[in-house]
């Protein structure tokens, strides 16, 4: 099992990034500080110890859940991370739903009409999602739907509505459901739509192309003709037979898509004022809050790895031909 090995490796890279070149306490340093004050700070954050010691100290912290103080959010890193994680997860999940449904939809649509006009159109459409500079696209959406139509707003919720709601899960939609507050639920979903679509649109292509190519392959399989030979209508041949099997390899790229979503959140959260870990990272980068950067990068990669692990398991489960472990 190389999983832990990779995590350790990642943590080392992350750590060295923050030490080599990066100034771990850049954020605390104001330009009118005197050298003594800087020294004092460095001492407070134990930067005078040799690097390996510092690493071990940090690593111990990571394990024990103490990753230091996140200056950009004026909270302990762990606290900040988990208070913001919900936001990002929620957006990513909704975006994933958008990406997967539209990806599979487009892929099926195109694959079933292989090399005909609809196929080409869907391909261009889905790929244009992956080629769109998100930050630009998002602004266009805001201009149209916020300023000109006033349908949507930025942010994660309307504080007036959500002020009264507690956040046991951190996912506003669930919190709203738990609170049994329909208005809040609608508000939460409403704020989710634009960011989720923007983000999901980007990841659609990955899934769509995989879905298409595997559907094309499946449609060439004998069992599809066999199904036709039974007298099944095309609808069933496509839905129950070809697509079901095409979905299996498609699952494998969902992990890839998730990575795409993760890095997309950094930009999307800036523009839609989404209080998630993506924007947390962006702030940290601009203001040099190394403790935050380290925690974020490490956590993201662990998340990314985990998702891929899950995907592999799912794949093994879905594909009857693969025997788990073998």
């Amino acid at each position: 099992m190389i999983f832990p090995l990779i995590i350790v490796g990642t943590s080392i890279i992350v750590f060295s990034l923050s030490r080599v070149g990066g100034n771990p306490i850049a954020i605390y340093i104001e330009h009118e500080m005197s050298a003594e004050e800087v020294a004092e700070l460095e001492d407070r954050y134990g930067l005078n110890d040799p690097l390996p010691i510092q690493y071990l100290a940090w690593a111990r912290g990571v394990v024990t859940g103490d990753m230091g103080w996140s200056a950009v959010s004026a909270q302990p890193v762990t606290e900040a991370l988990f208070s913001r994680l919900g936001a990002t997860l929620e957006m990513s999940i909704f975006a994933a739903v958008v990406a997967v449904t539209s990806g599979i939809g487009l892929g099926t649509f195109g694959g079933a009409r292989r090399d005909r006009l609809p196929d080409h159109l869907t391909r261009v459409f889905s790929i244009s999602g992956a080629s769109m500079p998100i930050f630009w696209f998002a602004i266009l959406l805001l201009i149209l739907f916020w300023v000109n139509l006033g349908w949507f707003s930025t942010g994660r919720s309307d504080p007036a509505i959500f002020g009264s709601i507690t956040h046991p899960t951190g996912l506003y939609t669930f919190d709203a459901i738990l609170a049994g507050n329909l208005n809040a639920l609608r508000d939460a979903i409403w704020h989710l739509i634009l960011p989720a679509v923007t983000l999901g649109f980007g990841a659609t292509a990955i899934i769509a192309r995989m879905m298409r190519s595997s559907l094309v392959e499946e449609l060439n399989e004998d069992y599809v003709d066999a199904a036709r030979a039974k007298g099944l209508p095309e609808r069933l041949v496509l839905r129950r037979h070809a697509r079901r099997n095409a979905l299996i390899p498609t699952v494998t790229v969902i992990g890839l898509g998730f990575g795409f979503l993760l890095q997309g959140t950094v930009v999307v959260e800036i523009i839609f004022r989404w209080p998630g870990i993506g924007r947390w990272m962006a702030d940290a980068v601009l203001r040099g809050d190394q403790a935050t950067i380290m925690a974020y990068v490490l956590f993201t990669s662990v998340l990314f790895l985990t998702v891929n692990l899950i995907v592999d398991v799912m794949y093994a489960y879905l594909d009857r031909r693969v025997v788990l472990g073998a």
Partner: protein
Amino acid sequence: MADISTAPTRLTLTPGPWAVRARRFSEIAKKVLSNPTTLIGLIIIVALLALAFLAPVLTTPNVPDPYQMPRDWGARDAPPGTPGHPLGTTSTGGDVFYGVLWGARTSLQLSVIVVSITVTVGVIVGSLAGFIGGKVDEILMRLVDVLLAIPELIFALAIAAVLGPSFGNIIFALSVVFWVKYARITRGQIIHVKQNEYVDAAHVTGDSKFRIYLKDVLPNSVTPVMVQATLDMGGIVLTAATLSFIGLAQAGLAEWGVLVSDGQAGISAGKWWASTFPGMMVFLWALAFNLVGDGLRDVLDPRTENR
């Protein structure tokens, strides 16, 4: 399927005299071009390259550094069609037309440099791992796994933030991030190809390992790398643009990302041109290379995933 079938079968370059290989290539080319979307992509690419190459002709290069936007502080936010500023100017009086053209040059430079660096490094590392195998393979691949575990943009962001926002540093950051995929692809291919009989045959005939590598293994590992490189040509520019948006870009550089993020506030007040034109360019650039890459991938290896 019917005995006489026109179903696409996986094409890979088979070994042999260059004549054979050339024919394969022309076959592949035919197949690739038969897909209209790929064709469109190619056309766009050609157009963009033309812009890049003609930039010095169509505009008067800014002295001393043509990659710096020429700023006319007097004519800020001029709308398209203003004499001397066909596409208008930015809020700092930069000529959008100039930015769009030289931005194409910047993007070309950026992507070509990064791709050639990453492909070289990636292929070398991947070859070592795949061909030598054993411990070397083990170690290199763990490294690759580690690097792959960090999503590209985020990794690039972290590096660029540490290095500072010069053009060179951006190139460096992107190179560090993008070589990994090639290593993995090349290794996979080589391991796959190594198992084919003709390599054993070569062994029998007593060719040196390196000769076999050059003659048989490498050429057969080229195609997926080619695909990935094409896709990355677009991805790199997109990533770079995103970095500039977040704030990591060389000041005053004629680069699309910079122009877009500088011009955005303007859109809301009706000064759409400053960010729309460069935005469109980034979009077209990425779209074109993605279309072509996707087309290539469909023909060359329909099932390869890019990780």
